[in-house]
């Protein structure tokens, strides 16, 4: 009797493990495909997008709250949002991304990438609220030395600079400073896009890159004002 119960339990565990394994495998396939797209320059065929969607849907069928699949799905949503020329559709994609990231964060609240992506999704939804500020803060605290996190938080933060509190502004300035040591060129590109040279001109790490812009744009900046 005990053996039978044990056998059933083992079989159940094996089935669960197999399903989780399948879910992770499919999420990994989707992730690899997404990575390939983001490093390529040619357009992606619709059937490939659908295939990735199927991977992720199947992955979530095996494991409904698989954070890997949810994060990749959110990345797909945001990429489709950028591709859209239909405002309502773009909004829906950004909303889907936000919901998937929220679900993923319930499973993996210590991932700075999920927090940073949530901040981006909120930015695209034009929802600069407490959740946005918290997402930025969490991403910065959980991945202070991750170059991608530094870039994402500074990008989202500069877009909403006028509505950040002093502590968060200071934290992002810290990210810019740390980024100078890791990937100064990329951070310089972001700062340049926002024309916030005032944030890097005093930093010697950016001297080489920003000298010209700092000369041309000398004078105090007035961020967040119209």
């Amino acid at each position, binding site marked *: 009797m005990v053996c039978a119960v044990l056998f059933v339990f083992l079989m159940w565990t094996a089935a669960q493990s197999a399903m989780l394994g399948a879910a992770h495998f499919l999420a990994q396939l989707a992730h690899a495909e997404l990575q390939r797209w983001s490093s*390529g320059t*040619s357009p992606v065929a619709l059937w490939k*997008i659908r295939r990735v969607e199927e991977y992720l849907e199947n992955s979530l069928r095996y494991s409904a709250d698989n954070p890997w699949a949810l994060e990749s799905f959110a990345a797909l949503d945001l990429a489709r*949002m950028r591709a859209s020329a239909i405002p309502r559709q773009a909004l829906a994609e950004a909303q889907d991304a936000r919901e998937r990231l929220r679900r993923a964060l319930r499973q993996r609240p210590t*991932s700075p990438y999920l927090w940073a992506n949530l901040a981006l999704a909120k930015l*695209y939804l034009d929802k600069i609220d407490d959740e946005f500020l918290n997402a930025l803060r969490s991403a910065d605290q959980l991945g202070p030395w991750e170059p991608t996190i530094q870039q994402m938080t500074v990008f989202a933060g500069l877009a909403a600079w006028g509505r950040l509190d002093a502590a968060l502004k200071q934290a992002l300035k810290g990210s810019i400073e740390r980024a100078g040591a890791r990937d100064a060129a990329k951070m310089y590109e972001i700062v340049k*896009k926002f024309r916030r040279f005032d944030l890097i001109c005093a930093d010697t790490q950016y001297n080489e890159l920003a000298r010209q812009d700092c000369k041309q744009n000398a004078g105090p900046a007035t961020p967040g004002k119209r």
Partner: protein
Amino acid sequence: MQASLSPHRKLGKIDRALGGRSFAQTKGHRVARALAAWALLILLTPVSEDALAQAGYVHALSGRAYVQKTGGRAPLTAGDTFQSSGSFATGERGRLVLKFADGQLVLLGPGSVLRVDRYRYDAQDIKTSGFSVGLLNGSMRFVGGSITAQNRSAVRIGAGNSSIVLLSDKSTDFSIVVDTGDKQGETGIAFVAAGEIAVRTPYGRIRRILADQAVPWRPNRKEQPAPVPLAASPAVVQAAVAALRLAALPPSTPVEPIVAASVARSEAVAVAANSGPVGYVEAVSGLLSAERGNERLVLNVGDRFGLGTYFSTGETGRVVLKFTDGQTVTLGAKSSARIDRYEFNPRDINASGFEMTLLSGSLRFVAGSIASQDPQAAGISAGGSYITLLMAGGADFSVVVHPHAAGGEVGIAAVTKGEIAVRTPYGIISRIDANHAVPWRPGRGEPPPPVLLAALSPADKQALDELLETTNLAAALAELPATAAGPEAAAQVVIAPLPGVYSAFTVTPAVTGCLGSPC
């Protein structure tokens, strides 16, 4: 100019122009020469005046576009010229590219109205040149020409209740979207691709928008946002701007409108003549007549048809048309319809579109790749009503319309799959879900809310029966051939999103994040 010259000088000029030295030598020929010259002058004068009055021309258009004239509006076609003032409007799926004599370009997006109040261009005296245009509603991309580059102080550009000030003499390229229809107040978006502008909105002044920056404005907001790079703008802003920047524009160099218009017209005619078939007849029963231009066509199963084809079915006629993207349109008995626009680019679905007109009778529409991927790319006029699709992922709906019924248009729309909206002469039906239907008729005020097909009121059922000449709507709809293209057919076609969308992000950080340990 010509009226101020003496006849002798005129004749001399014309004579010299004709090179008629020997012709002028004999006294006897002078009278004949004078008569010929006057005749030539009379012939040339209207053309010259016309040429002088032309401010620009329609470079390209898709869908429907109109020019406002006294007593109504007239449809525009590529190559039409326009004078120094006038109003232009685009239909719900229309796009219009206007090119002005100084090279300035205006692209009007769908559902937009543009008023040109004043336009004067003198290449020899740019200081006296200037213009004033206003986007009353909708969306517009503006690319500056010689006037904006050399005399921007003489430029007035309005957008809804806002006004735009050019801050740069360099090339100017910006996009504006305004919606003045909201009771709460104006909503707008400005994006600058080149140059610098300022915008005075009803909620305050946006002092400076630099290249690659976008900014929205809307009512009921304590603080209006500051301009940010487009990539960091809200999703709706990015999409609205992308919609305006999909179309390729000609170079913004000065042109002679009459000449350029003639070229544009010839090109449009050549494109239409060379446009291949857009679909084929999949099934036909009863009497079917078809025309394209002045040509009468005899269409049988398997025969292909092109853009602009007009179909008319007889008492018991029925025809199923299949399009290259997999979409099918079935016309019921005693129906007439015309294919107005069909562009299918499998590599760029955003450049594709479909528009047709059901003049009278019944029609069933099953979406193919175009409408499944981009519902906004498809539109159907049905009598005085207009149907739009609301959802991607496929649609299957039927519409019956009798625009000339006693008292006004009578119609019904029934949806089997997807969602649609209908603008009727009596009001807007904002959404009809699957398995629902809405009838519209005169004397009832606004159309009633959608009801389940099975739960239509006896009065509506009776009205439908009369329209469909049958006793059961569901049976009548089911009778139409099931030619669903839907997602299955769409999946066979390779569609690519906008180039570069999935390419490496240069400034915006990659959104895929990090998977697995140690993240």
